[in-house]
Structure formats: C-alpha cells, structure tokens
C-alpha cells in the first residue's frame, strides 16, 4: 500500500464506505471477494454431499450381499427392507455412482477451483478493484444455486436420481425405459445447463478481467502462475462448456419432446437412426478439456505455494506458462482416447494415442520444474506447503497411470475397470483436491483475516495422504484383476473371488477419509471466528494480494498499485532486509536486476 504511487491513468477511486444492507453485502453482493466466499461455502457443502454418496457406495461394494448399516433410515425408493435389515437397491446404487461423479465434478471441484479462486485471486493478484463485470459475476454464482437445488431434489423424485453414469452415455441416458429414471435424469440435465451458463458467464468475466484490468506494469509475463492457470482454464471453459450445453439440451429434447438425436431405436424396436456415438463425441469434446479445467488451476496454486514455501523463485516460470498453454491446446484434440472401446478406426485411434502421449511432455516439464523449485530451497513445511508437495507426488502417480490408458492396447484391457477409478481419483482427489486444500490453507488468512490452526492442518494432511493412498492405490490392482467400474454386486463372478478383503480395507479407509474431512471442516469454521488474527502477509509472499490488509476492503485498493517485478521473487540477491521482493515495491527503494524472472 505504501508503495502505491499516483496512478498514471488517473482512474477514479471506487466507492468504499457505502453503508450497505446485509442483503447487498453478504447475499447479493457484487464484490468478488464475497462471491468467492459464497462459492467456497457452496462447494464445501457439495464436497460433503459427494463424499457421503461415495461412502454409501463403498459400503455396498465391500459387503455386496449384506444389509446396509443405518440403511433403515433411507426411504423405500433407495433400499429394500427385509427382516434382517435394509438392502441397497441396484437402481439406488446406479444413482450413487452417477451422482457422486456429477456432484464432485460439476458442483464441488470445478466451482471450487474456478468459482472460488478465480473470483478471489484474479482481481487481487492483478491489482484491479474488482472483476470487469461485477453484476455478471453475481449472476454466475446465483445460476449455480438452482443447479444445486435441482441436483439434491432429483434424489427424491419418482424413479430417483440420474443413473446412467456421470458421462450420461446414450441411449441409457436418453431412454427412460432402460433405467427406470425419467424425472431425475431431466432434472440433472437442467442442472447441467445451469452449471454451463454459470461457467460461461464466469469465464467471460475472468478472461476480460485478465486481458483488460491488469494494473500498470503487470505485463503478461509478470502475472502470477495462478492467474495464468486460471486464465487458460477460463478459455477452456469458455470453449468447452457451450458444447456440453448444446449436447445436454439435445438430450433433454430426446427425453421430453420426442427427438431422437442419440436414440438408435425406441422401446418398440422401431429404428430412429439417432447416434449414441455422437453423444460420446460431444461429451468428450467437452469432457477432455474439462479434465484440464479440473487440474490447471491446481497446478497454478501449487506452483505459487511451492515457491513461497521454498523461498525460491518458480523454476522455469516461462516454461511453466508455455506448458499450461500447450496442455490446454492438446486438451482439445485428444477426446477420442476416452472412446477406444466404442468402435474406432485404428488409424484414428493411433492419432489419439500419439496426441495424448504428447501431453505427458508439458506435464513432465511442470513436474520437474516443481521439483526444481523445491530443490535446495529453505522449505517451510506448513499445511499449505504439505498439501502442495502432496499434490506433486499424487499427480505424478495419476499422470503416469494416464500414460497407460493413452495407449490403445493397454486401454482395451483396463477400460471401465477400477484401474480407471484409481487413475481419475489420483488426479482429481490427489491432484485437484490436494491443491485446493493447500490453496484454502494458504489464502484463508487473506479471505477471512484469520489464520487456520496449523496443528490441525498438519494432522488433516497426514490423515488425508495416508488414507487417500490406502483407498485408491489398491484400486489399480483390483482393476487389473478385472473388477468392473460401476458394478453393484461382484460376488457372482468367479474371477473376482479374491478381491473381497481388499475392497473391505478400501471401504474402511474411505470412511476414515470422509471423517478426516470433518477435521478440516472444524478447523475451517472454528478459524473463521476464533482463529488467530492474520497479519497482512503471513507467508512473506511477493504477489499483490499480500500488500493489502487481511481481509482486503471493498474495492481492494484505494489507488491501483504499480507493478515493477516478476511474480515470484524470493531470496533475491539484491534485497538484503528480507527474503522476498513485493511486485509493487518501487525500484528506487530496492534495486534488483531489471525485468527479473
């Protein structure tokens, strides 16, 4: 703040001390920081719901022939009640599989990565008063609310929630007579259209803000890697989500007004000549960029936390940026690798294999640069840093199993087995969610003005790391043994006779993992009210958001700061009084080498 000098373009200072009603301040706020907090509470709630669905599902997998613990409290649409207890219905199991994936991807992880942190960090890290379009920003949160309500409601309608898997493969998802689910599927599709709308509105806002609202001196290559990652992610969302919306709307039409985009024949056997494969192409044209929407922001947080926690600049800053860009570009041309088993020209399959393997190159660049950042650093192993290091390790495992699947012959064997489940959780839980926990521990002080408890944070980290691996690592083996991905009862298969004990261990650890989430939740809510007061810059970090009070006031800056340095300047040789160099520190106060990264 003290270093902000007269702003050259003379932009008017935003209104600061307007007294606002409670409703305008906390509920229908246009302040990006409040919207970010709203998204955070929303997504943490759905993270819990998604976890609950997973625990229920795991119980069925571990003990397929036994009644559910506490199953008696569930309604008869979900369980079959017998004298010795309540047994889970297969239809309910299908709903659990589908909704666990859908809720986690669309209502928890994606809005937590983008809705929370793009909103909170882009204006603060770029030195802007707010987003480019604050009211559009508010709308992008409030379009998520009906999506959440419809999703929850779909469990209690006739036929239950959607049961065709989160990928909604047609004709299973398009013909109610195949699954017995009609209203649940439609509600979920409508929710999906709302999610798409929210995501597109958000993306327009983030992209415009990054292009046009950077503070003076904040050149493209002085932007923190988090902003770079969120910017590239927003482009992916902008171009991929509309395709899913279009496909989802066509699927709604198939269900409601009698079109047949994805239905080859109806229940009576009449040929309608719709194409189920078309759905898969449309879905994965969205779905594979979506994978990178779910990991790129996590990579951004990790780069930043690792630099701060190692007291070193990010190793290979520009390489990190170009790696992000090339991952995003490649992400649009590899969707076919999800469809090797769907019937594909082998030549095309080879093209998808090769382009997919290419993604390993920028991913490896990033991984080695993270290690280069930590190498011989002065490591500060606080909770945020632990989760960032955990991210690198878990992402490496998930990334490597991804290389297995990219190869057509291997994929044909492991397709739709638990190997895939293991892979997706190593990147989405071990990857995205670890980085998200890190981001929450890291930026919580800036968001709420208080510190989270470190001891609880570290216990949370170790519990999560150990239990996560106990849950998901054995799934590789179970999958290689041939256990199918969405199976309700595996006991009838001779080749699966040996997997019972492993599945029971996985389930017990999964319950522990779910429980450890409540330790985090306790720490989170306790710290909001009772945590130690946070200083402006608790981690000694160099990016702009740490130069304003915690939490920043409405409008962030009285005067727009001026940026002189790269984003991650730690242990700079020319700076002697401290081991970091703020981006907006005047060069005539400290004298570092020019244009440094």
């Amino acid at each position, binding site marked *: 703040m003290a270093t902000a000098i007269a702003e050259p373009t003379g932009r008017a200072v935003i209104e600061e001390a307007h007294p606002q009603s409670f409703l305008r301040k906390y509920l229908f706020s246009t302040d990006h920081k409040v919207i970010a907090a709203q998204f955070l509470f929303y997504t943490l709630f759905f993270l819990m719901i998604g976890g609950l669905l997973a625990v229920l599902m795991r119980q069925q997998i571990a003990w397929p022939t036994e009644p559910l613990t506490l199953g008696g409290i569930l309604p008869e649409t979900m369980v079959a009640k017998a004298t010795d207890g309540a047994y889970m219905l297969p239809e309910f199991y299908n709903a659990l599989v589908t909704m666990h994936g859908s809720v986690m991807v669309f209502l928890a992880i994606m809005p937590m990565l983008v809705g929370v942190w793009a909103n909170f960090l882009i204006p603060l890290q770029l030195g802007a008063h707010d987003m480019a379009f604050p009211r559009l920003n508010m709308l992008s949160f409030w379009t998520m609310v009906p999506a959440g309500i419809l999703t929850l409601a779909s469990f209690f309608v006739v036929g239950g929630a959607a049961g065709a898997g989160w990928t909604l493969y047609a004709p299973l998802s398009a013909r109610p007579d195949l699954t017995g689910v009609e209203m649940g599927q439609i509600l979920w599709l409508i929710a999906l259209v709302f999610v798409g709308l929210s995501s597109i509105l958000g993306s*327009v806002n983030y992209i415009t803000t990054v*292009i046009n609202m*950077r503070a003076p001196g904040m050149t493209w290559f002085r932007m923190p890697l988090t902003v770079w990652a969120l910017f590239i992610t927003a482009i992916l969302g902008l171009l991929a989500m509309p395709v899913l919306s279009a496909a989802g709307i066509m699927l709604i039409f198939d269900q409601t007004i009698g079109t*047949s985009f994805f239905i080859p024949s109806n229940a009576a056997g009449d040929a309608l000549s719709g194409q189920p494969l*078309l759905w898969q192409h449309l879905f994965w044209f969205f779905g594979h960029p979506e994978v990178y929407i779910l990991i790129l922001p996590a990579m951004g947080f990790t780069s930043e936390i690792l630099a701060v926690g190692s007291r070193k600049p990010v190793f290979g800053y520009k390489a990190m940026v170009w790696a992000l860009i090339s991952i995003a570009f490649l992400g649009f041309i590899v969707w076919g690798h999800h469809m090797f088993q769907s019937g594909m020209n082998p030549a095309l399959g080879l093209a998808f294999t090769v382009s997919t393997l290419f993604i390993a190159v920028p991913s490896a660049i990033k991984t080695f640069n993270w290690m280069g950042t930590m190498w011989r650093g002065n490591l500060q192993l606080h909770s945020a840093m632990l989760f960032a290091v955990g991210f690198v390790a878990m992402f490496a495992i998930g990334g490597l199993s991804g290389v297995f699947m990219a190869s057509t012959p291997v994929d044909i064997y492991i397709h739709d087995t638990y190997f895939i489940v293991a892979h997706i959780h190593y990147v989405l839980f071990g990857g995205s969610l670890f980085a998200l926990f890190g981001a929450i521990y890291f930026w919580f002080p800036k968001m709420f003005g208080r510190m989270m408890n470190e001891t609880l944070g570290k216990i949370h980290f170790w519990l999560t790391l150990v239990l996560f691996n106990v849950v998901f690592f054995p799934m590789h083996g179970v999958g290689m043994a041939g256990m199918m991905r969405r199976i309700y009862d595996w006991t009838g298969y001779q080749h699966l006779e040996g997997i019972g004990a492993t599945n029971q261990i996985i389930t017990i650890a999964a319950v522990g993992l779910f429980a450890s989430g409540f330790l985090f939740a306790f720490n989170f809510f306790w710290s909001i009210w009772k945590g130690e007061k946070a200083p402006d810059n608790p981690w000694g970090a160099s990016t702009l958001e740490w130069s304003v009070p915690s939490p920043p006031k409405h409008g962030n800056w009285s005067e727009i700061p001026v940026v002189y340095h790269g984003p991650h300047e730690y242990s700079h040789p020319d700076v002697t009084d401290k081991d970091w160099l703020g981006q907006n520190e005047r060069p005539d106060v400290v004298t570092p080498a020019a244009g440094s990264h």
Partner: protein
Amino acid sequence: MAHAAAVNRPPERGLDVYTQKVGMWVFLCSEVMFFAGLIGSYIVLRFGALENTWPEPAEVLAVNITAFNTFLLICSSVTMVKAFAAAQAHDDQGIKKWLLATTLIGAGFLGVQVYEYNELINHHFTPSNCVVVRNGVEETCSILYGSTFYTMTGFHGFHVLLGVICLGWATIRAYRGHWSGGNSRGIEILGLYWHFVDLVWIILFTIVYLI
C-alpha cells in the same frame, strides 16, 4: 512525485479496447462453440442417415418465404450499422429511427418464423415426426430431420428474441436521450451481438434450406 511516476511508468495495461467490447467478443466465442455443437451434430446425423430418409429441403420447407426472411435479417444488420453511425455522429434522430427500424425488422423475422413453424406443424412436420409428399403419396422420413431443424432454427430464433428484447430496450432508452452526446458503446456492443446472430442465420439458411 508526478514526475517520478512518469519516469517509472511501467509498460502495458490491457488492450486499447474498452472492457465491455472485449467481454462481448469473448462471449461470442462461446456462442460460436454452442452453434458449432448443434451444427456439427446436424452434419454427423445427416451424413449418417439411411439412404432416402433425408428429404430435400424444398420437399418439406417453404424456401422462398425463408429466403425473404433472410433478406429481412440482413437488412436489419444494415439498419444496426446505421444506428451505430448515427450514435457516433451525435445524430439523435438517426439513433431513434434506425434502432426502431432494427427492432421492428427483427420482430418481423420472428413473426415470419412463428408463421413458418405453425404451417409446418399443421403439415405434421414436428421435432418427432417427419412426413414428405412424393408423387402424391405421403412418405415418412427421418425423425432426425425435424429434430435438427427445430433445434437449430429454434435456438437461433431464441437468440433473435433476446436481441429484439435488448434492441427494444435500447430504443426506449434512445427516446429518453440515453445515447446522445456520442455515447455509442452500448449500441456498438449490441450491434456486435446482432451481426453475430445474423451471420449464424446465413450459415443455417445455407445448410438447412439450400443444400
């Protein structure tokens, strides 16, 4: 102090384009992908259809009426440009006149489309039913023809409707003097959207009604 700021003035601060215009361009990128999804599906389904199940456009649709409608929409793009030029030239009467003209032509396009839909449905051509008359005999055709036709033209019509609502609002503001004094940004942004919708229609008209 001011001098020091000038010396240290760091480079680069965004594009030389105002933020709302950047935002509209970015939004139009996502709109391109939305229509690309619909049109791409149409291409896949049409080329995947069984032989003789996909009718010729003229067998089902009234191409002449729609050609006239296309002409209307192109005219409305011209009037939109006129409105923007008037706003830049501080010509208050011109703004009112041309915005009103654009709104009315846009509404006229929608009217013709509603009439077209009504006629088609009366002839049992719906999203879930396809009938063509060949040599006096009614034959069924691919349901997908109707599915894709109504989805693509319907979503385009929905975009026109949104445009007409915004244009109507802009026209009301014009009569209240909102756009006077060179305040042309809102009209420019609305114009971008309107030209985009027009462009999409030219593509749709070509692939649905002509080939």
